[in-house]
């Protein structure tokens, strides 16, 4: 009987078929391509779950599909599929959220009478195809190709309403900023191929395995620029990290994500919350065996992540639009995941990735429902009192907010707590950088609690502040169904890895840890290979875990601290904003608020870099090109023209001149012949 793996390509190809159908036949279909997309993604979800079940039975898959460059004695470029526990989990997440977004779009786009829908559903289908193919990728070049394709779809979808001013500009900004990071990713990919001769992620011939062997002295690989192997692997890791920072919107390439909110809200939910920005973190997790070999790269990842978490959370404190708060929240939460990866918490990072995908998509879809209700007015200060009029949306949104803030027992509490715990124990084991990241993450917990509940209270509580809020537009089942599904998941998804409960009670509850450990040893992607007692983290990264209060004690203390800080932030928001007529308390921050509202002037800084640094450099290069390089070419031709103009004057038409020239020539020939022939 054919196994799930034979159908694995179909997981990605079904949405591609939906793309084609929507593109060419969308205008003939009743829902303009939504049903084609929904059925395709339902099919992908079924196949992903079947694959998940098969992997749960212990099977994995790593095969080439199509070789497009078969090298002789050199590298081979191919497209292939890698299915191991991590990718199977990610497939289910992506296809589930994509399916719910397609259903939600029926309510957000079709029911609101938007135009251009075949294009919308076609682009969503293309995005789903490229994201699923990215997850399935078994080598770095294929991952890069689909990474770029995902960026293209993001550009198309952000700029969906291109006839207005904001969206095309935001789309260009997103594309350019991520492209800037992807340039470094490409250089890193080429470097990895040049060093190892392969880009495979898993298996005995994969580049993490070869790098590990090279550092252990068993094989040798070519390094460049005279760097040693350890230093060169760090360089490669940091180069690939450039693409990750761009795609996952970490500092300093985070500026595109808030502007990407110009796109339709289902797009924000799918792409800019749950899947595309997850691609960067997923890539690091996929290559974790390579990153663990370089403590410097891990330190950089942790520091960038921790800083971004705090930095973005501070900016979310003062925003007035609903989707802007959620955008900065996304940046901040991905900072947590990067902090976890840098801090050696592989399972924690994947756990947070899963729960974040669920609750952030939920929050965005909830925001979409609110936006439909408020006739596309996003300003929270125009809302208020919506909880009585939109109960399903309210409770789903509340569930998502509790998860985001990290309140027990919602999903976000368990995952965020584990992120912070892993960073703390590895930091106490002798890594001050990780402790700095931990401190920043902890402070961001306060901010997260505050801005999340400020958002909830301003939107749903109090008295309605405008007429639209008093009489909101209703939403139908196609909006409420995804909200309900995700709301329930946000509440219960924490059960997949209840590490603190396990440590306290001794009952085995860390299912995610076991799941990720299921990869066979030949793949090299299992958790024990990464972070186990003899794993790469211990041998190469030098991380050791130190539990100052004993394992149980540290876990409980850490959980208590983070829960306490989250409740502190939430409580402060409750006091300030859960009143019938809240005021803008953040004005009391004064000039600090101006700084935060202007996003620390990062956008202006990047424009300055482009206009006042890069443009003059490129003008200088252009001048050099035109005057020196073109000048040499032009000079060659003008020398030839000038010389010929002068030489032409010998032909005067006067016979005696010709006779003179003849005689002179004869003399020269006689002298030459005489010297050679020995006449003299």
């Amino acid at each position: 009987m054919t196994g799930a793996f034979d159908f694995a390509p179909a997981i990605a190809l079904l949405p591609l078929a939906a793309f084609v159908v929507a593109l060419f036949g969308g205008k003939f279909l009743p829902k303009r391509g939504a049903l084609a997309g929904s059925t395709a993604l339902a099919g992908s979800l079924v196949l992903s779950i079947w694959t998940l079940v098969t992997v749960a039975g212990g099977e994995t898959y790593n095969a080439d599909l199509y070789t497009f460059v078969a090298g002789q004695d050199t590298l081979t470029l191919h497209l292939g599929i890698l299915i191991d526990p991590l990718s199977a989990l990610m497939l289910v997440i992506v296809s589930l959220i994509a399916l719910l977004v397609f259903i939600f779009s029926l309510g957000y786009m079709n029911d609101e009478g938007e135009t251009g829908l075949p294009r919308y559903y076609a682009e969503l289908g293309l995005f789903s195809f490229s994201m699923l193919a990215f997850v399935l990728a078994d080598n770095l070049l294929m991952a890069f190709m689909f990474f770029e394709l995902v960026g293209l779809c993001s550009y198309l979808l952000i700029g969906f309403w291109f006839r207005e001013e904001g969206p095309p500009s935001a789309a260009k900004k997103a594309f350019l900023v991520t492209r800037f990071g992807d340039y470094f990713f490409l250089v890193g990919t080429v470097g990895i191929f040049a060093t190892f001769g392969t880009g495979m992620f898993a298996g005995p011939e994969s580049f993490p395995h070869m790098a590990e062997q090279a550092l252990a002295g068993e094989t040798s690989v070519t390094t460049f620029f005279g760097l040693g192997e350890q230093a060169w692997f760090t360089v490669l890791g940091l180069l690939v990290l450039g693409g990750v920072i761009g795609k996952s919107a970490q500092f300093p390439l985070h500026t595109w994500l808030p502007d990407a909110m110009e796109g339709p809200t289902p797009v924000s939910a799918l792409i800019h919350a749950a899947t595309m920005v997850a691609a960067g973190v997923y890539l690091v997790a996929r290559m974790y065996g390579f990153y663990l070999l370089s403590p410097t790269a891990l330190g950089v990842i942790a520091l960038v992540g921790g800083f971004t978490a705090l930095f973005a959370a501070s900016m979310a404190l003062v925003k007035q639009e609903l989707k802007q708060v959620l955008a900065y929240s996304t940046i901040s939460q991905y900072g947590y995941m990067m902090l976890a990866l840098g801090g050696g918490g592989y399972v924690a990072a994947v756990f947070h990735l899963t729960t974040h995908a669920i609750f952030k998509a939920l929050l965005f879809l909830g925001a979409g429902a609110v936006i439909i209700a408020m006739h596309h007015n996003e300003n929270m200060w125009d809302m208020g009192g919506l909880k009585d009029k939109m109960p399903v949306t309210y409770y789903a949104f509340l569930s998502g907010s509790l998860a985001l803030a990290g309140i027990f027992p919602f999903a976000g509490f368990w995952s965020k707590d584990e992120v912070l715990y892993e960073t703390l124990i590895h930091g106490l084991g002798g890594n001050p950088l990780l402790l700095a990241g931990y401190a920043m993450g902890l402070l961001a917990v306060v901010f997260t609690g505050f801005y999340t509940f400020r958002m909830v209270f301003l939107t749903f509580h109090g008295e309605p502040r405008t007429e639209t809020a008093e009489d909101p537009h209703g939403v139908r089942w196609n909006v409420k169904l995804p909200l309900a599904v995700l709301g329930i998941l946000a509440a219960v998804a924490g059960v997949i890895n209840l590490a603190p409960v396990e440590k306290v009670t001794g009952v085995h509850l860390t299912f995610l840890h076991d799941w990720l450990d299921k990869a066979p040893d030949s793949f090299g992607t299992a958790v024990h290979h990464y972070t186990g007692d003899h794993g790469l983290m211990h041998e190469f990264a030098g991380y050791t875990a130190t539990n100052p209060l004993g394992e149980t004690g540290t876990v409980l203390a850490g959980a208590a601290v983070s829960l306490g800080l989250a409740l502190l932030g939430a409580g402060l928001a409750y006091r300030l904003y859960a009143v019938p007529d809240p005021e803008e308390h953040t004005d009391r921050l004064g000039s600090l608020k101006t700084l935060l509202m202007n996003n620390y002037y990062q956008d202006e800084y990047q424009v300055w870099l482009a206009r006042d640094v890069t443009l003059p450099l490129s003008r200088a290069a252009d001048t050099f090109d035109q005057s020196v390089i073109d000048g040499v070419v032009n000079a060659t031709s003008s020398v030839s023209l000038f010389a010929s103009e002068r030489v032409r004057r010998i032909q005067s038409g006067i016979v005696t001149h010709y006779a003179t020239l003849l005689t002179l020539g004869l003399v020269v020939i006689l002298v030459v012949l005489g010297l050679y022939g020995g006449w003299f």
Partner: protein
Amino acid sequence: MVGVVHYLVLSAAVFAIGVFGVMARSNALMFLMSVELMLNAANINLVAFSLHYGNLTGQVFALLVMALAAAEVAIGLGIILVLDRNFGDIDVTVPTTMRR
């Protein structure tokens, strides 16, 4: 004793004078006279070698050259007549229509 070298140097001198005349004279008749000089220098050379080697071939050749020089002058004068007809002047630096 006058050896063949003296005749050869004489013929070289006469030839050089003829070459100078071809290059420097602007009158077409003087040009032709210089050409005659060059031919006669060659004749001196031929006869000198005929005497040196005792072979009459040189003298036969010199006789032929003289006759050919005469024929050439006849044709040359005809060309000078045509030149005068077309350009109005027998200065050889005037006709420049064969240049670029």
